[in-house]
């Protein structure tokens, strides 16, 4: 999965890749902490919205045009891809949402209280929140929705990932219970949710569509109910011709503040986004590497419309199968790490569009450790390590090594990878061959751990170190594709799961990350850098973040 291409679906050639990628919701850690510390975060967030520089006299109305691929579904409970989620967060809503400052704030929940043991969340719903058809939203609607998301017949692929912390969800998903034990309606406007262990990231998970509220009557209209969805979001679905066009109209009654623009038009049939942008057929477009030089030239009029979007939380790496020779010897793995010059490759080959990775967690991510030394380029040391390894420094006697990469279809591999392979050849004398496979086969082989060495990336599903470290490195995790197994790391990760004190918890994760880096099951390469976006000068207040958060209601035209 080419994680660096995630986010906005702006170019036709990316849609295939993007269609397969996993959606994410993220926000920064400190903000979650604040929210939890002050359950009445809602009032402060409202104040922030009002303080935004919006000139009411010139800003109402207008049509915002963008390009997207066709969303596989508009059913919040089924969505597991970025395209669908991007649209769903504008049409539907849940208890909580993420504001433009990336803080978890109330959506339909006005505020909430967290019990002292951090297991029970009591949500107080806004009394005036309504579905698009005017029907009030109650706690019963939430209970029904959460149970529908976890019903086996709904066939959600992500319910367990996003809601699995709630007591009783696993039983419901396996068809062993009718209700979710941990979801209780106190009264029409009070909902109580109990989770299995204290988890600071639980609220952030509830901002993902799987936890959104749907209208029971609407869903029971039949399988095609999403053609006429009765959501609670800032926009209503006005027109939808699958594969061609989706039009969203503003919802003037929206409880967090009505959108400023009157309509959003998603062009779904593809096209050449750059040319469409230049021809004013789009208000926003992504920028490919091919157009970069031209746009970065200050004499190009489009240069003024070029904006930098903040990076997404991701890490690109090469995974090494710890059970496969020669990677069963940590010294060989370390040697490979020491033999590449990340800084130089990032600057010379990748035009500084990425940040060289020193560790596993991306910068800005909760528990990110800025003092990690990382693997500095040190060919001497690399050769020394190879010599000390059980395989020795005579690389002719090494077992054949193959690196597998998704996509490519026989075309040249990316230049950075070429340079890395060449460094290993020159510095260590290691010949590594490349295999390119199509994504479906790649995914299957990855999950079956058939690769000796593989090129891939990971992007956070929610902003918690657990989503990187526990998921990818615990010896019993289904997603530990490198077969990495260190009992001390396992212990630290298990401790971190239930540690309630954030600082201590992050220390545990940092210690685990340090040990993992030393053992080198990965060759961490890059964290994604800032991405360029073209935005028409008349579009104001567009939230550049790559995260899937409701952002269209804030836009206005000038």
């Amino acid at each position: 999965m080419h994680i660096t291409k995630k986010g906005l679906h702006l170019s036709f050639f990316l849609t295939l890749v993007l269609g397969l990628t996993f959606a994410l919701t993220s926000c920064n850690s400190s903000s979650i902490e604040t929210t939890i510390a002050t359950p009445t975060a809602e009032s402060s967030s409202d104040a922030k919205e009002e303080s935004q520089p919006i000139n009411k006299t010139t800003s109402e109305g207008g049509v915002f045009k963008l390009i997207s691929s066709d969303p596989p579904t508009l059913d919040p409970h089924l969505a597991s891809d970025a395209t669908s989620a991007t649209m769903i967060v504008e049409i539907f809503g849940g208890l909580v949402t993420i504001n433009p400052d990336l803080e978890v704030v109330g959506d339909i929940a006005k505020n909430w209280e967290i019990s002292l043991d951090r297991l029970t969340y009591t949500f107080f719903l806004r009394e005036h929140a309504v579905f698009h058809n005017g029907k009030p939203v109650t706690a019963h609607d939430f209970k029904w929705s959460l149970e529908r998301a976890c019903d086996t017949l709904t066939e959600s692929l992500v319910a367990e990932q996003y809601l699995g912390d709630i007591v009783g969800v696993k039983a419901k998903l396996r068809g062993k219970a009718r209700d979710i034990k941990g979801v209780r309606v106190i009264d029409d406007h009070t909902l109580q949710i109990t989770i299995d262990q204290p988890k600071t990231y639980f609220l952030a998970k509830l901002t993902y569509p799987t936890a959104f509220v749907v209208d029971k009557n609407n869903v029971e209209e039949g399988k095609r109910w999403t053609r006429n969805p009765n959501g609670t979001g800032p926009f209503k679905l006005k027109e939808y011709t699958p594969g061609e066009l989706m039009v969203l109209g503003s919802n003037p009654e929206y409880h967090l503040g009505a959108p400023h623009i009157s309509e959003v038009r998603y062009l779904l049939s593809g096209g050449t986004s750059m040319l469409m942008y230049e021809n004013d057929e789009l208000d926003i477009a992504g920028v490919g590497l091919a157009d970069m030089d031209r746009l970065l030239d200050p004499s190009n009029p489009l240069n003024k419309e070029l904006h930098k979007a903040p990076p997404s939380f991701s890490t690109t790496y090469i995974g090494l199968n710890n059970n496969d020779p020669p990677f069963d010897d940590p010294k060989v793995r370390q040697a490979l790490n020491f033999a590449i010059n990340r800084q130089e490759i990032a600057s010379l080959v990748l035009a500084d569009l990425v940040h060289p990775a020193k560790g596993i967690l991306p910068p800005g991510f909760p528990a990110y450790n800025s003092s990690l030394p990382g693997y500095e380029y040190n060919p001497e040391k690399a050769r020394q390590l190879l010599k000390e390894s059980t395989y020795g420094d005579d690389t002719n006697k090494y077992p054949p090594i193959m690196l597998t990469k998704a996509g490519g279809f026989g075309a040249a591999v990316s230049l950075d990878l070429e340079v890395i392979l060449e460094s290993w050849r020159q510095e260590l004398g290691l010949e590594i061959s490349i295999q390119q496979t199509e994504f479906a086969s790649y995914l299957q082989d990855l999950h079956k751990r058939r690769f000796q060495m593989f090129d891939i990336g990971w992007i956070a599903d929610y902003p918690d170190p657990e989503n990187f470290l526990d998921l990818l490195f615990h010896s019993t995790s289904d997603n530990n594709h490198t077969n990495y197994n260190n009992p001390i790391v396992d212990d630290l990760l298990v401790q971190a799961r239930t540690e309630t004190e954030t600082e201590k918890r992050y220390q545990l994760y940092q210690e685990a990350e340090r040990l993992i880096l030393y053992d080198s099951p990965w060759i961490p390469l890059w964290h994604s850098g800032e991405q360029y976006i073209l935005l028409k000068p008349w579009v104001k207040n567009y939230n550049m973040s790559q995260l899937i958060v409701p952002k269209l209601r804030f836009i206005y035209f000038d």
Partner: protein
Amino acid sequence: MAGYILRRLAWTPILLLTVTLITFLLGSYGPGDPVELLQGQYSNPEVVQRIREQRGLDRNIFVQYVHYVQSAVTGDLGESFKYRDRTVKELISKRIWVSAQLGMAASLISILIGIPLGVYVALKQGTWVDITIVSITLFFMSLPVFITAPFLLIFFGLWLGILPIQGWGGFFDTRIIMPALVLGIPGIAMLTRLTRASTLDVLSQDYVRTARAKGLGEFVVRSRHILRNALIPIFTVIGLSLATLVEGSFITEGYFGIPGIGSLAIEAFFSRDYPIITALVLIIASAFVIANLIVDIGYHFLDPRIRY
């Protein structure tokens, strides 16, 4: 003749059954799984297994096949894996019609320019006109879509600003012009060369000399005696290429943002959306059967000596 057509039609179901069975087996034994792909890079094998069971993917492949055939006969082609609230029929029908219209427009361009041009250069065989025109058409045939599409887009869309860059409005909308040109231009060269060769072959036949000898006008000789006979191989090529209209064109559709079948097909292959793949195979196979039959019947009218 009627007997021949009936015999041919009787074979069709058997052919379609074989084709779908092969598609089914390839899907089942090939790598990749639609449910796993839907879940993405994050994997939870238990969830994947549960949904595979729910969708009947864990059953014996032949049982699945029989079920498929039973519902396909009633017109139910199943539901997409990826587009979770849509039936295959719904996903495909509109897009096939779009691709077919675009394909027809492209074919018209190829035929209306290619055939007359072919006859013309055949009559001028060996002169500089012949060489120049054949070279020009060859040049255009050699241009890949990656060049023609962006060129047309920049030229007509951005510089002249007379054609919209993206979208689809049907056969009589200006937005069909550029994609139809991109798809039709390579066909011009092919048809010109084919018509030229075929006409040259006919020109040296005895019956052409006879026609002239008995004093027929040049126009009658050319249209009734030369072109009609020269058309037989051309007719075969055009007839069969009509079957490919329903296949769509992934790249061209992508450049111009046309909601055709090509992009859906590629997407279905990559996401292992078996119900869509099988339905497309069925439709394309049927289209070939029908086109073949039409071509065979057409021969009889072009050349009454051909009998079945």
